[in-house]
């Protein structure tokens, strides 16, 4: 039987890629192959990718050795034009055949809805897979994108690091691919399957297996030593691409370094030396786990070197720490005047002054007790002082954490210290949120000050480029408010933040925008993130309809989305939605009308009096239910109060009456009913197809 499939292997040998580049590159490699082979009509089996910092491999099972035979039809002129009545070709017929490069006898006739037409069938010559692969591999390799690329020779090619060589095997056959000046790697007489097997024997080829292997090694050692079984997932992922054949070494260091705050120790170990911290009952112990590459090393020697290097580094941390704690944190705040916050936004001292006022403002709105209020103010005052310490200078990621450590050392209250640490939380989407009220209030102040200041100074995210983190800040703000269930009016908060920038508090920084304009911009960014963070609803439009009404109370938005999701299938909910929809439709058609208050004396028809009666009787109760956040009850009452009355009214009374005073009065009534619900709960008119059974 003729062989139609062979296994394919591509190996890109490259000078060590940054560990974080490998996994995304493998994903791209795999997807690019699948996509290109599909486009080229070459069938294949499983596609697997394997990678280390130095090699990216794509292995494709059963690649079909030729493209699929393909043909397609090209239609020409109608038959009556291409051929005369004697069935001889006309000049037009001959022209078409000539243009398509076929003989007259190859022209076919096909009857279509429009009559009989001339057409031809063109076959696309199937190319051998080898030829196609030679053409697409360089393109696939070039399509792998990296955060940063470089050039290294005069070929002009760019990649994350220099490409050393490229090996391509179609079973035993080498396909020579050149990328820039990098030579093709050639292997004689070894099949792709055998080559892969050989690699598998020399190291753990599969990155997922390798990761599990490392994790197991560490956990087993932890178990054996009676230590906590936990592992730094980010470091694990990085290490996994720094080694090929992992070997574990457990080493130790002098106990005296345990005096250094935990996060500093951890940063020294995991960030600078890429070794794992070990702990017992949640506390770090003077041991570490290092993952080395390759067997047959001089483990005893290496262990010594790792330990010595660690101690030397820790000595430096201890030096910074001891230098920093010589001065109380409080004494540092004055020096914040020398530290710029952002271009055009003054210095860090002004920032903490704003934070003090803002957090006090929030505290008052939340009715926080006096003692806590003072702690929050103190924390705000000290919140940025650690930026001046040597430790944060050396490890910027420790901002807040060192602030907490040094605040405690300076004799500040624990709640103040924790608030300093927590005000930077969450650092990412999945990070912990501030738990204490003090920390949360300060965190909100800092975020709103950042967003307002940045947008106010003309900085704005562009596409996915958001270098100053305006979106991230907005997102964090929402997460914190939601998490703590704080009921704060967003507009008043933003106004306060703008006011603080605009001199009234005695600060120098002024923002170039009009307050209303800036407020609108800030709200837009927060709303955009709110849409992103609010849980999805069924139907999707329910979420949008909640966001269309008042969003000033972020925690309330989440409550409303949740409450309405639960009742969205109820008849009374649909009735309420119908009320919103009908009133909203009639108002949409009344643009430009003067709509004022409802004038009772202008109500003529019984049916409109009925509707207004329903309003008079129920509006206060509905408003109260909304105020009490009983959205279910509010929606029920709203739907039941107006649905029937409005239905009859619309069927029998012409809203758009000739008499403008009557018309405007009726519209006023519609507006009042509409706003009663849509202002503060949700604009349910946005829901699709509202049908009340």
């Amino acid at each position: 039987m003729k062989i139609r499939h062979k296994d394919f292997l591509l190996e890109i040998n490259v000078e060590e890629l940054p560990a974080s580049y490998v996994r995304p590159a493998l994903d791209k490699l795999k997807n690019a192959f699948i996509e290109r082979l599909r486009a080229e009509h070459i069938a294949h089996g499983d596609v697997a990718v394997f990678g280390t910092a130095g090699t990216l491999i794509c292995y494709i099972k059963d690649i079909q050795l030729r493209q699929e035979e393909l043909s397609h039809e090209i239609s020409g002129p109608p038959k009556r034009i291409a051929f005369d009545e004697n069935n001889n070709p006309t000049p037009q017929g001959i022209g078409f055949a000539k243009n398509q490069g076929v003989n007259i006898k190859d022209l076919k006739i096909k009857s279509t809805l429009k009559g009989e037409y001339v057409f031809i069938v063109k076959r696309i010559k199937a190319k051998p897979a080898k030829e196609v692969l030679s053409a697409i591999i360089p393109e696939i390799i070039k399509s792998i994108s990296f955060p940063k690329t470089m050039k290294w020779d005069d070929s002009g090619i760019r990649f994350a690091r220099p490409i050393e060589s490229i090996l391509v095997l179609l079973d035993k056959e080498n396909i020579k691919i050149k990328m820039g000046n990098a030579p093709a790697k050639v292997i004689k007489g070894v099949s792709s399957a055998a080559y892969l097997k050989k690699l598998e024997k020399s190291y753990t080829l599969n990155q997922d297996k390798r990761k599990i292997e490392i994790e197991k090694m560490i956990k087993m050692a932890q178990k054996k030593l009676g230590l906590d079984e936990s592992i730094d997932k980010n470091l694990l992922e990085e290490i996994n691409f720094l080694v090929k054949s992992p070997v574990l070494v457990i080493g130790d260091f002098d106990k005296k370094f345990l005096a250094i705050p935990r996060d500093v120790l951890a940063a020294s170990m995991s960030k600078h030396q890429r070794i794992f911290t070990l702990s017992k009952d949640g506390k770090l112990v003077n041991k570490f786990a290092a993952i080395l590459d390759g067997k047959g090393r001089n483990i005893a020697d290496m262990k010594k070197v790792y330990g010595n290097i660690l101690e030397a580094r820790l000595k430096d941390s201890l030096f910074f720490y001891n230098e920093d704690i010589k001065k109380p944190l409080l004494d540092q705040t004055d020096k914040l005047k020398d530290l710029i916050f952002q271009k055009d936004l003054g210095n860090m001292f002004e920032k903490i002054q704003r934070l003090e006022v803002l957090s006090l403002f929030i505290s008052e709105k939340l009715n926080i007790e006096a003692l806590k209020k003072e702690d929050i103010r103190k924390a705000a005052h000290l919140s940025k002082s650690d930026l001046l310490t040597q430790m944060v200078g050396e490890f910027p990621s420790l901002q807040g954490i060192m602030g907490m450590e040094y605040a405690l050392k300076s004799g500040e209250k624990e709640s103040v210290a924790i608030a300093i640490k927590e005000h930077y939380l969450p650092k990412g989407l999945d990070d912990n949120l501030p738990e204490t009220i003090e920390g949360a209030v300060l965190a909100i102040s800092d975020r709103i000050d950042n967003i307002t200041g940045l947008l106010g100074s003309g900085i704005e995210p562009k596409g996915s480029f958001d270098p100053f983190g305006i979106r991230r800040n907005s997102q964090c703000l929402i997460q914190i408010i939601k998490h703590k269930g704080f009921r704060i009016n967003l507009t008043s908060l933003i106004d306060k933040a703008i006011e603080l920038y605009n001199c009234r508090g005695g600060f120098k920084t002024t923002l170039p925008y009009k307050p209303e304009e800036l407020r609108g911009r800030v709200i837009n960014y927060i709303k955009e993130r709110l849409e992103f963070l609010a849980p999805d609803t069924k139907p999707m439009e329910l979420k949008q309809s909640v966001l269309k009404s008042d969003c000033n109370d972020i925690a309330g938005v989440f409550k409303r989305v949740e409450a309405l999701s639960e009742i969205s299938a109820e008849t009374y909910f649909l009735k309420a939605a119908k009320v919103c929809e009908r009133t909203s439709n009639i108002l949409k058609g009344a643009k430009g009308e003067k709509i004022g208050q409802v004038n009772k004396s202008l109500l003529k028809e019984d049916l409109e009096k009925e509707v207004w009666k329903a309003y008079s009787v129920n509006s206060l109760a509905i408003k109260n239910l909304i105020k009490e956040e009983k959205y279910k009850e509010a929606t029920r009452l709203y739907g039941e109060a107006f649905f029937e009355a409005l239905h009859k009214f619309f069927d029998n009374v012409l809203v758009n009456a000739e008499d403008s005073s009557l018309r405007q009065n009726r519209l006023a009534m519609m507006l009042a009913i509409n706003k009663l619900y849509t202002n503060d709960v949700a604009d349910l008119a946005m829901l699709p197809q509202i049908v009340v059974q």
Partner: protein
Amino acid sequence: MRKLSFQEVIDKLNKFWSNRGCLIVEPLDTEVGAGTFHPATFFKSLGKKPWSCAYVQPSRRPCDGRYADNPLRLQHYYQYQVIIKPTVPEIRKIYLDSLKALGIDLKAHEVRFVEDDWESPTLGASGLGWEVWLDSLEITQFTYFQQVAGIELDIVPCEITYGLERICMFIQGKFNLFDLEWHNGVTYGDIHRQHEIEYSRYNFEEASIEMHSKMFEYFEKEANALADKALAYPAYSFVLKASHAFNILDARGAISQNERPRYIARVRSLAKRCAELYLSSNP
């Protein structure tokens, strides 16, 4: 093999790179923060002419002083700098061979290339490459230059910067650099301890802020004046002096975070002027 002394390591590296076609040039006689500042790297990386050399460069980082109290940190130390332009495909293998030539057993120990995209903001130089780790001890900075003085390079040079003390620590199995053997039983500490202590005190406590502030201005002015007269090398030497004055001011805590980027930008724009001057006569 007998463990190499500090001076023997330099000797071996000179021989090694000399045998591979590098000129061995001498250190620059001005205070600099790194071997990259030497005109043999800064200027010679520019333009299209090939260039390969190696040299020891005494380097000063006033902020890194620790009063001889830290086993890894010094305000004055030695770099061994290799610059190969254009880089060659087997450069990393050659580099690993140089480690073997120093008697380091690469089978028993692990060499790791850890991502590090190097950058010198004052020189406007940047490149992609690695820190080279030997059992987690950083012994070399390995960089493919992409830019110098903010100018995109036509020909990519490879810069290999060995931390001489670090390598000796590894070779001699000593984890305090003051205990390293310079040669014949004389230690690094014998030669440098007092120097470190006194300079740490000078950099952090005694250097005149007023004088260095003024000097910075003078040096900047002189560099510009010389650049106006198209004297690239003398102008550049004043850029280096300005850069060192800035480093001293920084160590003295005399530069606010606010001013820092502006100082750096001033040095960088001077360096750029010099680079452009050099390029105009050495395309």
